[in-house]
Every structure is written in C-alpha cells, then in structure tokens.
C-alpha cells in the first residue's frame, strides 16, 4: 500500500522533471534563458580572474564561515548584546511561523496597513508576504525584479535575479496592465523610470520598512544589506520603523571580515566588483525604531548534521544557479522552493523531505556548483548524500526500488551478469521494438547504441586466454 501511494505521489504532483519538461516545450526560450545566465557566469569568471588570489579569498571565506558555524551560539549572543547596546530590539524566532507572527505584531502595534520590503530570501522562505496579506497588510516589494514577479503573482525564479525568466517585452505588457504604461513600450529605461515613479509613492507613504540582511557583524551589532538599487536605504530612511529579518547563519565575527565577503559576493553574483550599495545599519536614527528578527527555521537541525552543516555557509550569491546546466535549462520555478538551483536542492529537503524529495535528483552531479561557490560548499557531494537519505527514508518510487535491487543482484553475480548482458544484446538486436518504443525515455529523442556481436569478456577469452 505504502509503495502504491509513493508511486502515486511521484506521478500526480508536478515534480522537477515534469516542470522541466514543460519548460522545454519552448526550446528557443530555453536557449535564451540558458544564454542569459551563462553570460552572467562568464562575467563572474572575468571578475574573479581580476582579483589576485581569488582562490585564497574563497578559502578564507570558507574558513571564517566554518568558524562561525562552530561557534554560532556565542557569536549570536555577542551580536544580540551589541545590537541591543546600539538601541536595536532583537527578536528570536524558532520557526517561519513565529517569524511571521513577530513581524506582524510589530506592524499591528503601529496600526500600519502597507509596508515596503527590500529583497530578503528569508522572508520568501517564511512566506511572509502571503502571511501578512492574510492579516490585511499589503507588502510592496521594492527590488525591481521582485516587484515585477510580485505584480505577476509569481515567486522569484532566482535569488539574485528574481525575474530573470521574464523578457523585456513581457515586462512592458505587465507594466501596461498594472502601472498604466503605454502598450507596446518595452524600452528598459522607460520601464525602469515607470517603476521608480510607482515605487516612489510607496517609499514616501510607507511608515515601516522591512529589509533582509546579508551580513550581521557580531563585534559591532550592525547589519549590512547589499543592493544595486538603493531600495533598502530609501525604504529604511523614509520609515519610522525598520525590521530586518535574518537567518541565524548570516553572522560574521568582525567588521574586517566584510573585506572578504563583500569582494566575493558581488563578483560571484553578477560579476560586478561590488554592489552599488553596501549599506550598514548600526542603530536607529533619532526617533526611529529598529528591530532585528533572528530566525532558526531548521538551521539548528542542519548545524547538528555533519553531512549537511556546510550548506549554512551560503551567502546567497546565486553563482551555483548561473553555472548549473540543469537550472539554466529548467528554470527557477521547476524547483518549487524560494531558493532554486543546486543550493536550493540541498536546503529544501532539510525543511520538508517529502515535499522536496525530487530536488537532489535534479542534477547530473557535474560538480560545477561546488567549485564556483565563493564559500566552498560541497554542494554536489551533499546532493549525493541527500539521495541516500531520501531513499533510506522511503521517498522513492516502488518501481525504482525493485529495479535497483534487481540491478544490484545481477551486478554482484558475475555469471548472471554475463548471461544478462548476452540476453540483452540479443534482444536489442533481434527485437529492437522491445526497447525502441515510446515507453523508453532514452529513445524519445536519442537512438540506442548499436549492438556489438560479443562482449569484451568474450573477446578477451577468444583473443587472449585461448591464444
């Protein structure tokens, strides 16, 4: 029974393979998506090559993050103490729900109905927008890419480039519907200006601004937010209340470490030497209120796992997505999680193993991600390890289980293996329709290999042993 249910779940829900299949129906679009992201990967390569000792920089960042994860408890307390000294209110949230409730209670206390928010993957992970909307509070995403997908009613498809799957003509149409821009105008500069005018009204009227956090410095109790549009600054400076939401892994020990991380982040993300704005928020300005919400949401559990702890080093640059040949050809939405691509595929199963059981299999284990990663996360090794965990926990179809057991049996019995090979070759040669049919996913777009008359073992016996 359990097996049947598993099979059903695998075929009835839209898993990565099914969604990727749909994405590939429009091949020119796949080509465009692939080339756009590959262009960014190449920009990253160029930017990285211009930094002397880039590999040493990666190693340093990796070691600092290892240190942070080994001493997270004390760094968090140090950060809290210093932030409080700076006049910031610090909140702790164990779960996504608790995080959303904390943010909501602050907004509610002020009697505010509309807030602005700059980019924060943590709030995406916690589904904050939906939660607040259900409480009657509207969130205006102020990052241009995020605003575009928000208007379209979609989640971001990339953590750094949320609307990378949208073409400018489509954005023109979207803006024409939502912002009243003239139909057919898809000039990027014109559309950006329209978005600026639209967002400015919200910046000016919003009394509360939410931001994410790129780095939280334990030594000083300050947070650093990196944007290219200055939207975090504009939101915070014009609001009476600033709420910054962060996962507990965003801590770095000292301010001087920013010299390593800021150099790696923008280059890895977009190939820029640095983000246009690296904004430090250390204390509320006079009359302003500042809150920081520290969120666990499964991170402590990850921290306790030797195999998967390393994923908490992530600085959310998105380089692994840009380099991933699968991500580029399946699109961010095929991952059905706030963080797509290789890093999402090792983070998501940690939150909900059953729901995201397909993601660690959406990879060829080519290893490009692990080597582009600025903090050296062993992403592809973790994908392999997640596969083992998922199978052991029963998140695999019954047919696959039976097939693998059979394969393992044949491959551990040399006599049987050699007979099975001979039978297989005979069938392929004499009954090709048995294999070359629509039920064989290999054959759909590829020919099967030609069948040799004998195996190498047979050849060896005839040409080396008997001679």
């Amino acid at each position, binding site marked *: 029974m359990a097996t049947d249910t598993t099979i059903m779940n695998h075929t009835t829900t839209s898993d990565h393979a099914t969604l990727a299949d749909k*994405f590939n129906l429009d091949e020119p679009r796949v080509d465009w998506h*692939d080339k756009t992201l590959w262009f960014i990967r190449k920009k990253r390569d160029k930017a990285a*090559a211009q930094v002397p000792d880039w*590999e040493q920089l990666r190693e340093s960042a990796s070691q600092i993050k290892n240190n942070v994860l080994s001493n997270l408890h004390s760094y968090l307390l140090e950060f809290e103490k210093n932030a409080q000294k700076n006049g910031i209110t610090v909140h702790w949230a164990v779960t996504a729900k608790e995080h959303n409730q904390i943010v909501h209670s602050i907004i509610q206390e002020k009697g505010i109905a509309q807030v602005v928010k700059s980019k924060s993957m943590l709030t995406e992970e916690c589904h904050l927008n939906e939660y607040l909307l259900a409480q009657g509070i509207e969130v205006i995403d102020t990052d241009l890419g995020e605003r575009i997908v928000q208007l379209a009613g979609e989640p971001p498809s990339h953590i750094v480039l949320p609307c990378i799957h949208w073409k400018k003509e489509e954005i023109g149409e979207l803006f024409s519907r939502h912002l009243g821009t003239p139909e057919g105008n898809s000039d990027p500069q014109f559309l950006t200006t329209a978005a600026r005018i639209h967002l400015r009204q919200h910046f000016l009227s919003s009394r509360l601004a939410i931001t994410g956090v790129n780095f939280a410095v334990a030594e000083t109790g300050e947070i650093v937010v990196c944007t290219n549009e200055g939207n975090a600054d504009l939101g915070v400076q014009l609001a009476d209340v600033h709420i910054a939401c962060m996962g507990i892994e965003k801590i770095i020990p000292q301010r001087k470490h920013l010299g390593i991380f800021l150099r790696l982040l923008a280059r890895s993300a977009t190939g820029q030497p640095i983000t246009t704005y690296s904004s430090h928020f250390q204390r509320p300005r006079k009359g302003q209120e500042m809150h920081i919400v520290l969120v666990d949401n499964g991170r402590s559990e990850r921290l306790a796992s030797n195999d998967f702890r390393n994923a908490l080093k992530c600085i959310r640059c998105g380089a692994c997505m840009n380099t991933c040949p699968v991500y580029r050809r399946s699109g961010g939405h095929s991952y059905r999680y706030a963080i797509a691509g290789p890093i999402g595929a090792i983070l998501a199963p940690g939150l909900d193993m059953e729901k995201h059981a397909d993601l660690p299999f959406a990879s060829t284990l080519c290893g*490009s991600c692990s080597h582009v990663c600025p903090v050296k996360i062993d992403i592809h090794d973790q994908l392999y390890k997640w596969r083992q965990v998922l199978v052991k926990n029963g998140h695999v179809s019954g047919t696959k289980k039976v097939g*693998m057991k059979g394969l393992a049996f044949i491959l551990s019995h040399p006599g049987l293996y050699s007979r099975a*090979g001979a039978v297989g070759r005979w069938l392929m040669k004499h009954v090709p329709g048995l294999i070359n049919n629509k039920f064989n996913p290999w054959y759909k777009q590829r020919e099967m290999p030609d069948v040799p008359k004998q195996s190498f073992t047979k050849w060896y016996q005839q040409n080396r042993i008997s001679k």
Partner: protein
Amino acid sequence: MKVAIFIPCYINQFYPQVAIATLELLEKLGLTVSYPEKQTCCGQPMANAGFEHLTGSCNNLFIENFSGYDYIISPSGSCVLHIKDHLHSSIKEQDAISMRAKVYELTEFLTDILQVKNITSKFYHKVGLHQSCHGQRGLKLSQMSELVAPAFSKPEHLLRMVEGLELVPLDRKDECCGFGGTFCVGEEAVSVKMGKDRVADHLQYGAEFITANDMSCLMHLEGILKRQKSPTKVIHIAEILNAGV
C-alpha cells in the same frame, strides 16, 4: 608492475572496442595487463540513484577481483571516481581503502605514472574534446573553468601527440553533457537539451569526431547525433590513442 584493467559494465557489454583499445594501448606501451574476468561494475548506478546501501556485494566483488595488483586502470573517469570516493567493505575495509589509491583513469595513468612522452597513433581528423565532469572536476584530469588557476589537461596533452589530429575549440569547454546516470531518463527533457547543446558546440567548429574519457557521455551524445542523422561520430579517447598503427 602488476597491472589490471577495470572495464565498466556498459563498455564490456556495448562498447567492447573501447576495452580492446585500452588493452592494446597498454600492451603497446610494454605492460603485461591482466583482465580479471569476473568483474562487473563499480556500483555507481545504484549509489548515484540513492541506493549506496545496496552496493555492498558489488564492492566486495570488486575487491576480490582486483586484489594483488599495483595499478587498476580503467577507461572511465566516472567509474574510477566512484571507486575512489565510495569503495567500502564491511569485511575488508582496509583493503578497500588501499585499493582506492591504486585505481587510475587511463589518461591519468599514461600521464602521471607512465609519463608517456610520445604516442605513435595517427588520426587525421578534426576532433572535439568533451571534458567528462567526473574525470575533470572529480579526478582533476583537466583544470576547470570555475577556478582561477593555471590551465592543464591530461587528455588534451595526450591528444596533442597524435599525428594528424586537429583539436577544435569550443565555446563552453567544460559544460556537462547531461548524461548523469539515471538522470538521463529521470530528467529526460533537460538531459537531452544539455546533450543537444553540447553537440551543437562541437558541430559549429566542424568536429568530425567527439571524444571523451567517458563512454557514458559519448553514448548519450551519440544517441543525439544519430537521431539528428549527423555524420559526426563519437570515439573514446583510448581508440584515438590506439589508432592507425
């Protein structure tokens, strides 16, 4: 030097000419080569699908077959990497650990151990070199484009010694072909698209042959080339290094 060849299961069954070329090439270089006939598979098909716990008897069989050799050479970066990373044994773990260090991919063995200075083969064709990921990034047979580090390539180094062979450039010199074991059927659409894109990169530079250290990548690319009725063929690097003499 006691040398054995490890022939991956699908090469044994479907591409015996690759195994023959490997054997002949090593013999030509003066080695006496054994082929333990009871060998089957490295266990990777199960392990990469999440079933590493089923590879126990396959592993023990591997250890049994290849005990007593100084070098175990295989014409596959992927299978070698799997052995190096995942060969375990509940009964002979020490043997498993020491065996992992004795397993070499063919071009790695030729370059690092035999330190081959010239190859007598002839191959008068335009060839595209596909860098199979497990050999490249896993065994470090070639430098990867992700790192800021000096370039090198063991397979390319050897191919440059072949008379008449012209290597074509590629726009993306180390992008995955999309084979990926069960990925090739589990994620059919993306796998094929990746393969088509790789093939197109080689074809735009006029490659008559696509070669690689791994026949699995080539089997996938061959399936696409044949469906496209392309005259371009795939050929394992061992076949080129053993050609025309």
